[in-house]
């Protein structure tokens, strides 16, 4: 087991090096640069030349890459061209926001998706099954952007139940030792702030959860159908076991394996895929930050952010692989 994990972990090194090169090259291939974006129609040739010089953009590309890697290895992701703040610092502020939202969305997707898939499988080809199929198709294909506007219109503007933007009511103050607001309000023992931060989580989490929810529901359904026709299930039923016990102990437990894989992979995607959701809900996470960086051609932030996301995905995949091997011993020996 340890051997497998180690081997798998070592494999990530070439992946990470390759990633850093791709990200570095990709960001530099974008049209325009900070010099142009900073000055717009006001820029004169000399001013732009001065900025390019200062940003080291006139040096050969491999020198720029070498310098970039050296800083990277010392944990320095650089400085934002626009805000002049260290990227690592800003990441510390923003990543908890993204993480909190991803967890909330994933919880929602699991809590609704797994039962939905299970019920659909039990009512195979019944009305419920077909309805859930249609719903999950809609879930996958509905643009998050539009769904978010719609949810906000109904629950915030029409019903006045939930807020449309931010992580906390703007007039409420709360200390942020962790930047996970739910955690922060628990630490502060502030129940009102806890309720408030949960309220702010509801709509963005639901909007963000639609795609993983639909996928989880479909995977659960397929897995449950698969397991239901297995011999040991037939045996359990034949010996007169309580059907609820069969569902719980024999079907659901065994059907969870592929679901866990999907949950892992989708969590990775959620952490990175929240750009639109975060922007529409003015959620101060990494996603909205990336979009801002694109808008202002902030190379350094883009580079740092994309690399951070890429590394995150690599590690989530690594974890999923290892946990899969842990759950299913056969994998280790292949």
């Amino acid at each position, binding site marked *: 087991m340890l051997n497998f994990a180690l081997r798998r972990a070592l494999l990530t090194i070439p992946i990470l090096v390759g990633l850093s090169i791709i990200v570095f090259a990709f960001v530099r291939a974008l049209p325009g640069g900070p010099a142009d974006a900073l000055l717009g*129609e006001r820029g004169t040739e000399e*001013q732009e030349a001065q900025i390019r010089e200062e940003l*080291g953009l006139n040096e050969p590309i491999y020198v720029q890459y070498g310098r970039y890697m050296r800083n990277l290895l010392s944990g320095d992701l650089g400085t934002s061209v626009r805000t*002049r703040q260290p990227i690592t610092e800003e990441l510390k502020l923003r990543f908890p926001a993204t993480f909190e939202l991803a967890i909330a969305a994933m919880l929602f997707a699991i809590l609704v998706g797994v039962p939905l898939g299970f019920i659909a499988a039990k009512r195979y080809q019944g009305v419920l099954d077909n309805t859930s199929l249609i719903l999950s198709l809609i879930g996958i294909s509905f643009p998050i952007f539009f769904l978010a506007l719609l949810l*906000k219109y109904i629950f915030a503007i029409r019903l006045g139940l939930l807020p449309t*933007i*931010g992580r906390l009511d703007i007039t409420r103050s709360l200390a942020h030792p962790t930047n996970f607001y739910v955690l922060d309000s628990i630490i502060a023992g502030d129940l009102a702030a806890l309720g408030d931060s949960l309220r702010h989580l509801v709509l963005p989490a639901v909007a963000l959860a639609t795609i993983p929810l639909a996928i989880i529901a479909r995977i659960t359904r397929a897995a449950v159908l698969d397991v239901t026709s297995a011999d040991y299930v037939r045996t359990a039923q034949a010996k007169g076991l309580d059907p609820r016990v069969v569902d719980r102990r024999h079907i659901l437990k065994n059907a969870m394996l592929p679901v866990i894989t999907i949950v892992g992979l989708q969590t990775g995607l959620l952490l990175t895929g929240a750009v639109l959701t975060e922007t529409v*809900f003015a959620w101060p996470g990494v996603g909205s930050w990336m979009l801002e960086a694109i808008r202002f051609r902030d190379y350094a932030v883009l580079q740092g952010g994309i690399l951070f996301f890429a590394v995150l995905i690599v590690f989530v995949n690594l974890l999923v692989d290892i946990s899969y091997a842990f759950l299913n011993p056969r994998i280790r020996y292949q």
Partner: protein
Amino acid sequence: MRSVKRGMLGALALLVALSLLAAACSTEDSGGGGGEDTGEATETLAFGTSADPIVLDGALVSDGESLRAIDQMFEGLVTLEPGGTEVVPGLATDWEVSDDGLSYTFNLEEGVTFHDGEEFNAEAVCYNFDRWYNFKGSLQNPAASYYWQTVFGGFSDGKTDSLFESCEADEELVVTLNVTSPSSSILAALALTSFTIASPAALEEYEADEGRVDEEGIFSPAGTYATEHPTGTGPFMFEEWQRGDRLVMTRNPDYWGDAPGNIETLIFQPIADPAARLQALQSGEIQGYDLVDPQDYPTIEDDDQLQLLNRPAFNVAYVGFNQAVEPLDDIVVRQAIAHAIDRQAVVDGFYAGQGEVATQFMPPELFGYSEDVTTYEYDPEEAQRLLEEAGYDLPIKIDFAYPTDVERPYMPDPQANFEAMVADLEDCCFEIQQKSATWTPDYLDNVDNGRYGMRLLGWTGDFGDPDNFIGTFFQTPQEAWGFENEEIFNALDEAEAETDEETRIQMYEEANNLIMDFLPGLPYVHTEPGLGFAANVTGYQPSPVSLEQFSSVTVEGGQ
């Protein structure tokens, strides 16, 4: 795994319970309602901005969102009348210009203190000017000290000439600024947010200019002045700033001036998406926001809980002609183009009722605007007649370019404008070779280097002086325009140097007449950007240069 299903049911129940709890909280909170405010909320105003400020040090920024925040906390020697561009006293009560136009002597307001309790006086003023003049290294980057360089040119190191000579604290409350050559636009420029006066003690204590320049040449402040301790004399004081989330300011209880509004706490919340800003206003989470999407104007106007305010036009969009490209060097061709384009139709079609057709290269709000410029009515037949009379074979081939991947306040949809104009031109008498490029860097580079014949472009004013519009375009020969017209160059030079206000206005009016006779380009629209507010917010005075004070804003309690 024994009770997966029960566990899941339990979790579901928990979620339902949490939602109910959340809903219960919402009835206690004042935030959720539909625009009607309860009593206590009247003194807090949340305003939706399009982005976070960069830093809160006026000397180091030129972007609108930083300036907006700094304007609430800082003041300059002079300012602009609310809602206009006329220079009025700020921290200076009055001023005098020496006969040679080289010295400006200001009498300062008495009894003014900075937010940290330090006294405001002539030495504090000179401390600030000397600070800017002595910027070094990365602080000389135009992305940092853009306005200093625009107005005063170089720094004390003498690499580039500077208009700034020295600052002298003559008496406790009398200060003199000496400049190296007369320039009448200085006074209006001093109203810029970048020249507001900060507390010298705070600048030093929180190390405003300390920092490191990283290997990529970016200055990152080591001190906390610009992020945690901005200290001015303005009606609001800095409270806290959570990047990406909120900037909180509170009323300055010791404010020396007039602050008729009732806002105790002012919060700027960055909401990048305009649709999200509108929804936050509709749900009552914010009470106002800037940069309303033109397509949302009707939504706000039709909602009696909301109101739409228009910012007076302070920009211009134009079709520029490069006279180095034939046949644009021929005045007849330029006139024909001007007659061939139906500018009114473009403005009606793509500006959601927030634009007016431009007759010259600066907006009507600005002094020096001329009522007597030659105008060019839409008249394709006249265009055709002019060209035929001059002996041209129609259609005339000409290239015309527009920028992609960009929207500007003066040009929300460049391509749509472009296509409408091309259709007009081709209907009349031209054959257009269409060109386009991404806004940065290609398009702007091509324009600056004179690679296009005709092109779409525009400008938003920085400060209330014609020098900032027609002076920027036409005071010197530029490759983009490709012409040398000494009469126009001289007229603008003289107007800039003139110190008598009345004469100066006339000179700019005449310059505008000259320019529109010469027709170096065809200005086609000035736009009025919209701001959305809750209906119970009064006293907000939109300014053409976006210098807007929340200290005059009142939030009315339950109506």
